[in-house]
């Protein structure tokens, strides 16, 4: 018996969501009175792997093969399933992010283990194994039972506090029975945004809507985001108009984000938009229309013209940063 957590890496590095997942795995293992095993695929240094030990990982299985630098859903999920069987994993955990969503369903089928995706916390009960998850794009929650002995979960972001739990780590190198020819996906090239905070990782997000009136008015949004170390985002009409790239679209059909602070500027707050940001810890709304629905979701609001308010906020943040 074990809880097996699949730990994605980004060019050999882990990030906050990785430590969240280890913390969750640790708490779950405690609840199930079993131990936790972490699986890492692709080259990651021993130093980086050891960081997971600060959050409760005691045994890490690593496949350092460079073939695993490019995500191939079929090969990755095969290796995860093999390891899950080898270690007798009862629960297999993923983050509810691009890779987790790509792999968990395949692992679920290959192990015939029921899947709950986007779990928002520890099980409400262990028998039956019941989890809470968001449904209807964040407009409500469901309680879902997994009926099989083996279980697969993906964990929604910000569902558990990162908790330190230091101890020694045992690292085991595993060589799966996989050849280069098994990889069916060939990477041609990769484009990465440089020098910008990644939207899905950001603690603070400054987002603009149609109320900004023109793509030429994005200067103050970007300046405020820069000063706050925030990522920039936008509403759907703005990305549909081509004012901003589609990667910035937050909302039901765009990116679902959960920052500590979401600042919505000139966004009226359609239900589909709020679905993508409702997990934010705090929401600020700036809008000329005092009846805009965004104020119902917001914690702080200002009614007025963004082009007048933003420069004042920028000034205030500069003063804050200077003091």
């Amino acid at each position: 018996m074990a809880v097996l957590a699949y730990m994605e890496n980004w060019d050999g590095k882990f990030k906050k969501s990785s430590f969240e997942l280890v913390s969750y795995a640790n708490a779950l293992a405690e609840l199930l009175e079993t131990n936790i095993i972490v699986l890492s695929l692709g080259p990651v240094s021993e130093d980086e792997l050891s960081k997971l030990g600060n959050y409760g990982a005691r045994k890490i299985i690593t496949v350092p093969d460079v073939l695993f630098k490019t995500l191939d859903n079929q090969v990755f999920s095969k290796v995860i399933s093999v390891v899950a069987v080898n270690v007798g994993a009862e629960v297999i955990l993923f983050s509810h992010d691009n890779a987790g969503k790509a792999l968990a369903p395949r692992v679920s089928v290959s192990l015939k283990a029921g899947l709950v995706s986007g779990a928002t916390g520890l099980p409400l009960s262990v028998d039956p194994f019941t989890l809470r998850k968001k449904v209807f794009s964040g407009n409500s929650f469901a309680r879902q039972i997994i009926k099989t002995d083996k279980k697969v979960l993906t964990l929604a972001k910000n569902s558990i506090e990162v908790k330190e739990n230091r101890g020694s780590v045992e690292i085991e190198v595993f060589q799966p029975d996989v050849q280069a020819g098994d990889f069916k996906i060939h990477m041609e090239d990769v484009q990465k945004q440089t020098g910008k905070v990644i939207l899905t990782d950001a603690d603070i997000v400054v987002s603009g809507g149609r109320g900004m009136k023109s793509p030429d008015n994005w200067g103050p949004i970007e300046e405020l985001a820069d000063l706050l170390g925030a990522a920039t985002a936008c509403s759907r009409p703005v990305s549909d108009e081509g004012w901003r790239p589609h990667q910035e679209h937050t909302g039901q059909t765009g990116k679902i984000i959960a920052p500590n602070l979401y600042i919505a500027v000139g966004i009226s707050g359609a239900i589909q938009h709020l679905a993508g940001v409702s997990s934010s810890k705090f929401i600020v709304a700036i809008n000329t229309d005092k009846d805009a629905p965004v104020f119902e979701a917001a914690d702080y609001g200002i009614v007025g013209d963004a082009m007048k308010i933003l420069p004042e906020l920028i000034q205030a943040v500069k003063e804050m940063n200077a003091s």
Partner: protein
Amino acid sequence: MKIIVCLGNVPDTTTKVKFVEDNTKFDAAGVQWVINPWDELALTRAMELKEDSGNSVDKVSVITVGGKNTEPTIRKALAIGADDAVRIDLNPEDSYVAAYQMAAYLKNEQELHIVFAGTESSDYNGAATGGMLAELLSVPSISSVSGFELEGDKVRISRDIDGGTEHLLVDIPMLAIVHKGIAKEPRIPAMRGIMMARKKPLNVVPPSDVEALTEIVGFELPGSKPPCKMIDVDNAKELIDLLQNEAKVL
């Protein structure tokens, strides 16, 4: 070459969600049903590929798992341009059942080329059916697909990653799990399409025998939140102070 598009039937995204029977069932009364938004984008991209004479896509089929009540949605997909449709006659209890039913049907296809599935459904947000279907069919799957081009018998894919995009080359058969960006805007059926859709084949097939792996036992609506604290527009700077000292997020 044929593209198969998996189609989900979901409540219109502006639906005010309610539950009945002691919060164990979704209240479908008065709900407008639509094509799952990502599936609609997938279908749109499939139609663009078929219309592009530079490649060899000659057919677009849609497949859905659902009761008779899903037929208006299927007809809409046919009106947008799909050539034919299959409905597996069952209300699936979970993603596994839906994927299993589609796989059982598609295994009978003479040759499988390309399957499109939306990244998730806007109702249960399982984000699972596409990946499960690929595993059941033993074909490669690519997730987070925001661009799809054909090049002979290979596929050129843009896959979104955190903070970037990868460009991949993949052989067929394959299954693409698509999201935002795959097509610019969903197509709206034209009157001619609506007329033609009535005559297009919609095959209803009986379900295979399979048990669900999970079960939803209840729903909860989110709790109410405290009202928004309004800050006077002439004192906008106060916001930064509140965020720093009250919310403690700066």
